[in-house]
């Protein structure tokens, strides 16, 4: 590109108003952004404080940072982390495995009562989970899955599936019909059509769907708290367990919370390009 010299225009009153408007919005954006980020920053900073410095008011900004809390966290975190990783990964894979064909049957090749199906899936999310915890507990006891990682996998899959189906369906609707017709003419069967044609096209959408499932499963506390004890306790359970009966714990809790947040942030950061493309898939052609 060749640069075309443009003579700077006199900043008229119109221009000035535009500029000040931009600056105004900029300030608002920064204030809101900082307000959101402040608790996170506070958590991370506190994690590096000695317990004695953590609970002072006003908060101290000058202190000698220590990794003592992290050492403590890492020493007890192992099983919790493993459970969380298993429950999150397996449930997310299951969601994709079940969600893709389900979304296909509700969009590209719709079944007869696809509207009812679609509504049924979302309706399962309308019931407050608290209302279901009693029956879930009883069932879990009877099928001997209480405090089992399999129970969490099943529940997290069920919990994330409706949203995933809705998301994947909306991505599938964006796939040009000519592409599917070309595949049909080329002799692709139904499975080939899904795996070879549709899935590559909507892969950014699948990544963002997976990411959301991962976040929800990773952060889930209520079910884990009520249905697991030790054999399947997850990272959010670990956070709770780092609150002792007595004594100071803020720094320890902050360190645990920081560690627990890292995987999700990491996954999000890796996936961010696909995430933006996936979430805006319908918006731009």
């Amino acid at each position, binding site marked *: 590109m060749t640069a075309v010299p443009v003579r700077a225009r006199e900043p008229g009153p119109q221009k000035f108003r535009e500029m000040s408007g931009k600056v105004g919005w900029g300030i608002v954006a920064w204030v809101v952004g900082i307000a959101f980020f402040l608790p996170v920053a506070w958590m991370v900073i506190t994690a590096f404080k000695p317990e004695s410095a953590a609970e002072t008011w006003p908060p101290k900004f000058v202190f000698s940072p220590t990794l003592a809390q992290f050492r403590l966290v890492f020493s007890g975190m192992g099983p919790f982390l493993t459970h969380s990783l298993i429950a999150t990964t397996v449930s997310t894979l299951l969601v994709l495995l079940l969600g893709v064909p389900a979304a296909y049957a509700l969009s590209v090749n719709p079944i007869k009562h696809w509207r009812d199906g679609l509504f049924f899936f979302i309706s399962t999310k309308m019931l407050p989970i608290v209302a279901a915890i009693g029956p879930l507990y009883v069932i879990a006891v009877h099928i001997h899955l209480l405090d089992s990682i399999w129970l969490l996998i099943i529940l997290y899959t069920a919990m994330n599936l409706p949203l995933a189906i809705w998301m994947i369906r909306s991505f599938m609707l964006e796939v*040009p019909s*000519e*592409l599917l*017709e*070309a*595949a*049909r*003419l*080329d*002799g*692709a069967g139904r499975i*080939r059509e899904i795996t*070879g*044609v549709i899935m*590559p*096209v909507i*892969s950014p959408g699948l990544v963002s769907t997976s990411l959301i499932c991962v976040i929800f499963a990773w952060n889930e506390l209520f079910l884990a708290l009520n249905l697991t004890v030790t054999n399947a306790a997850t990272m959010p359970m670990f956070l709770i367990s780092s609150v002792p009966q007595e004594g100071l714990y803020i720094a320890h809790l902050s360190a645990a919370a920081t560690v627990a947040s890292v995987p999700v942030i990491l996954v999000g950061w890796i996936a961010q390009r696909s995430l933006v493309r996936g979430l805006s898939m319908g918006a731009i052609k």
Partner: protein
Amino acid sequence: MAQVKFVSATRMYAKNALPAVDALDLDIKDGEFMVLVGPSGSGKTTALRMLAGLEPLDGGRVEIGDRDVTFVRPKDRDIAMVFQNYALYPQKTVAENMGFALKMQRVPKDERARRVREAARLLDLDDKLLNRKPKQLSGGQRQRVAMGRALVREPQVFLMDEPLSNLDAKLRVQTRSQIAELQRRLGITTVYVTHDQVEAMTMGHRVAVLADGQLQQVDTPRQLYDKPVNQFVAGFIGSPAMNLQNAPLTDGGARLAGTILPLPAPVRSAAGQAGLRELVLGIRPEHLHLADGAGELRGEVMLVEELGADALLHVRLAESGNQVVARTEGRTPPAPGQDVTFNVRPDDVFAFHPQTGARLAG
């Protein structure tokens, strides 16, 4: 290779709606280049999709090479289709795109690669392009890949749905002749859909003109131009379009722009039998010949469109005040505002029934 046959093929999108394709009867010969042409909503694309198996039939049947394929799945019809937007698989390379159908047919890898390269050579696609993704290609290259994907399959019938509409004007003209030439060389039966009558005329061995789901006429380009069966075909084929003017009947002909255009006896008797007092006259712009004041049709030039080789005159006719278009030699066209006269050879005057639109002919 095979002939294609539509037998009363009908498609209705909704129960009470007018059929998108209404009892289409069309015989396409082996090796023929058949163009389906018509305005949007004429049913030409629907007809093609019925042949492809992408659109079910609500009546009648479709045959490919004496085989009734009405209920045969698209992939088993031995056809290949080029889509308007090419429909290339975005995540596959050019070679994978072109070889996909063969892969589905379980053609061995070497054979696949050979046929892909062969098709690429046929279409002047550089070998370097074979490993690119569609996104990295220009519009013209994408178009050729889409063609290649169809070629590789060596089908019995090619189906093309406005394959040139996404190209710019110059490339379109170029590709137009390439496709026609390729089809002639390969001799594969081809059904080609377009809304562009120039494409239809230049490419088709025969052209089927459709309107409102009905087949109007199927004939060679020459015949469509010289002997249109009705007012629609007459107005659709030819550019600029034929001038169509209502004209009252007189003893020896019809009255238009201050003169009486003589009509052949069969036309007059046909009009008489139908009890007409008025008919629609059709004169092509290129058949209005400028005459220095001595012509029959009189009018005033309103606008001159210079095309280089020739010029289009928009002329307001005397008496009726209707506008007609005349094509004239480009060097010295008359100026706007000037009074002009035209001569017309009686053979070049078409006459149509004002209500049914059918051509009145002996």
